[in-house]
């Protein structure tokens, strides 16, 4: 009987071994087959195809998605100002249970509750371009706006004498971006020279308001040598006012961000310089960071994608061409 048992035991051990090996093999294979791509939902401020900034950021997102083998779903609102719709979209996104959400928040404060829901649902949250109050996201990828603000002032130092009057027109008070830029600009203006600082004024992001403010400044302040605009519509309004009053020989403008109008102004010498962001890099870094965070790597809570000062002289360098004239199909 003992021998019979030995044999049964041996056979069962062999069979168990075989089953274990095959199970391991199958599980590895099936794991390989089933482990799908990393799904990431990308929520830009807008999916408006005419707004180049977001188109280029999307190129960066797509490029990184290919490189890091992530599957990206884009969920965006038509208009950049539609905060409620973005909240609704984010709630929808949570239901899809992605591994990560990359968000460009349309509002610094109002998005926070839904952002907390995202984090509570165990989804990695990465903010890009515009962050959230309280730093809820795992990482914020965007331009260092304080630094961008500093650069607008620094470029002026070389072109305006130290006793000049300089006006600063910001866009909104409530925006963290705006405040950071403003603080950077003011920091440099106060640190160097004996500038007479006018403003900051607030354009509410409107070309017309900026134009009106600039026009009245140009008319009433004879010693005004330069106006700094802290976002694209503001800068455009300023440039338009200078052009209309034909004062480009006396007053220069410096701006942030670019548009066709601004490029024209750069070429025409109305705009001395503009500080531009790198949306492609933002999109790329956001996905890269999201993938790293999903993989459990430590990610920096703040990633600066940098900015670049563009002047008439360097605007056609092969490097800056790409930033200024992104190739968008």
């Amino acid at each position: 009987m003992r021998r019979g048992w030995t044999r049964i035991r041996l056979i069962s051990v062999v069979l168990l071994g075989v089953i274990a090996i095959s199970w391991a093999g199958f599980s590895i294979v099936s794991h390989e087959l089933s482990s799908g791509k990393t799904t990431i939902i990308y929520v830009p401020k807008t999916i408006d195809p005419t707004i180049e900034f977001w188109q280029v950021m999307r190129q960066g997102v797509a490029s990184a998605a290919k490189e890091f083998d992530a599957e990206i779903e884009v969920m965006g609102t038509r208009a950049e100002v539609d905060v409620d719709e973005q909240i609704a979209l984010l709630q929808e996104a949570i239901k899809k249970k992605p591994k990560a959400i990359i968000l460009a928040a349309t509002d610094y404060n109002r998005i926070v509750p839904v952002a907390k829901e995202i984090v509570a649902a165990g989804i990695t949250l990465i903010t890009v371009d515009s962050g959230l109050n309280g730093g809820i996201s795992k990482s914020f990828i965007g331009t260092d706006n304080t630094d961008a603000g500093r650069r607008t002032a620094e470029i002026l130092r070389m072109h305006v004498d130290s006793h000049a009057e300089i006006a600063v027109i910001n866009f909104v008070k409530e925006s963290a971006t705006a405040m950071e830029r403003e603080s950077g600009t003011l920091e440099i203006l106060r640190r160097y020279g004996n500038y007479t600082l006018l403003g900051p004024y607030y354009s509410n992001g409107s070309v017309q308001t900026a134009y009106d403010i600039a026009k009245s400044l140009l008319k009433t302040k004879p010693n005004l040598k330069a106006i700094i605009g802290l976002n694209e519509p503001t800068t455009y309004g300023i440039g338009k006012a200078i052009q209309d009053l034909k004062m480009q020989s006396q007053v220069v403008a410096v701006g942030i961000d670019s548009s066709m109008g601004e490029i024209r102004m750069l070429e025409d010498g109305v705009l001395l310089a503009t500080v531009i962001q790198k949306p492609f890099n933002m999109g790329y870094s956001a996905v890269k960071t999201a993938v790293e965070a999903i993989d459990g790597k430590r990610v920096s809570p703040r990633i600066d994608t940098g900015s670049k000062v563009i002047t008439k002289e360097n605007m056609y360098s092969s490097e800056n061409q790409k930033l200024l004239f992104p190739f968008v199909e």
Partner: protein
Amino acid sequence: MNGWNPLRHHSIHTHIAIAFSCLILCTTALLSYSTYKLSSDAVTHNSLEYTSQLIEQVKVNIQTYISNMESIAALAMRSNDLQRYLKQNEPAFVKLLMKKQVSQYFNSIVTSRDDISSILFISDRGDEIVSNREHADFNSIAQIKEQDWYKKVIGTDQAYISSSHVQRIFRDEYRWVVSISRELPATDDTIGGVLLVDLNYKLINNLCKQIELGKRGYVFIVDPTGDLVYHPQQQLVYSQLKSEQLDKVLQTWNGSMTLGEGSDKKIYTVDTTSFGWKIVSVTYPDELVGNKRQIQYTSALWGILCLIAALAISIVLSYALTKPLKKLEMNMKLAERGDFDIRVEIDNTNEIGKLARTFNIMISKIKELMNQVVEEQEMKRVSELKALQAQIQPHFLYNTLDSIIWMAEMGKMEEVVDMTSALSKLLRSTISKGDELIPISVELEHIHNYLTIQKMRYRKKFTYSIDVDEDIGNCQILKLVLQPIVENAIYHGMKHKPEAGHIRITGKRVDDDIELQVIDDGIGMDSEQAGTLLERKVASKSGNGVGVVNVDHRIKLNFGGAYGLRFESELEEGMIVTLRIPLLRLEDEA
């Protein structure tokens, strides 16, 4: 104990199964590995081949675009309208007309082809521009002339091919193009200038973008100065977030190289166009490995499946092989317990089959021997009984008692006493139980008594003498073996002889045996008849020889076939009966 053997306690079945399993495991592992190795090498090779074919294709396409542009430039330069337009001495209105015609001609080319975005001629003096658009809003001449395609072509007779750039000819228009320009040198009667043909960059972009090189692989194009014409992540390269080994690429004309370490390892495959652009494909060996991994899994999967099948077969096979052995073992166990009626039924002709047959033969032989032993024991018992009976034949007793009575009537008291005492001794030694083996001296004493009685009964019929060596007196002999021989000599030799005969009993040692002989000079028999005396198992009519045959039988049973009786005789000459037994001294028995 010859060393430690882990398999010592396992059955052959286990041994075979383990040996098979090991063998199969090794073979499968080896095969799977080599399959994987071969396939992965093939995959690597194929993908490299595929990559180089792909970029060759890109190169051909781009060369086609560029050469088309070159031929369009050549065509435009030779056009009559342009030649007339360039003539210095033509009147202004003719020049204006010619300008319009050239413009229309350029336009017809641009509209007929979607790869050309603009054609333009700019004169080196007078700063005149003729483009495919008749009423275009141009940027300032100075702005246009500071572009590379103008600056770099002046003073050369070669066409200049720019990298990808934003064209700044038309106001508020920023198109990505690749420019090809050519100088038309001024002659005595014509003005000089530069002809520009712009290729729509979209074509190159789309061409390169659609190329799939694994998941992460891509194609980029670099011009001979190291300027990136196309790169899917150009902005990352400019921001130093990414880097390409451009210096190494620029040194390579054609071929592949592996650069970088670890997960950053990339394979650069370079091909160079006729005008110096380098088409570079970047692939990640990791991805090939990804492909390899699939092969790995496939070969592992098949390996495991084969292994399972083979292991199952090995178990079944080893069981089938050892099954007859088990059967044999079981039967041997039965035999061990004493069952000799079994037969192992194994139909194989192999070693085990032979073993089984040998075992069967052995078992039947044992059985036969066992039966023989039983039979012999039985015969021994019967013979002894017969021997006993032979001694006390009632007939002999009656005759002897008759003789005593007769002698007593005759008053021969002395003879009566002799005979009676001999009979008494004879009966005592016969009836006395005791051992089967007795000393020769006792047996001779017995014979002496017997002969005394017989001699009295057959008065003057015979005489006898006993002549046995003293030193064998205490050797062992079977009880009552001599009497039947002597009896035979009297009844068949002496009784019918007219005159008195003589019976002589001798005994001596021959080598390690003892030979006792009963020699008579009676009527004897012919030698042939003497030779067959022992073959009679059943007594002849006259009862002749029954006792003798029994004696021979008893000796053979006790001492073996080499011993027994031998008869030598001639008719009328007498007979010699030789009894041969082994030399067994009394002490040996003790």
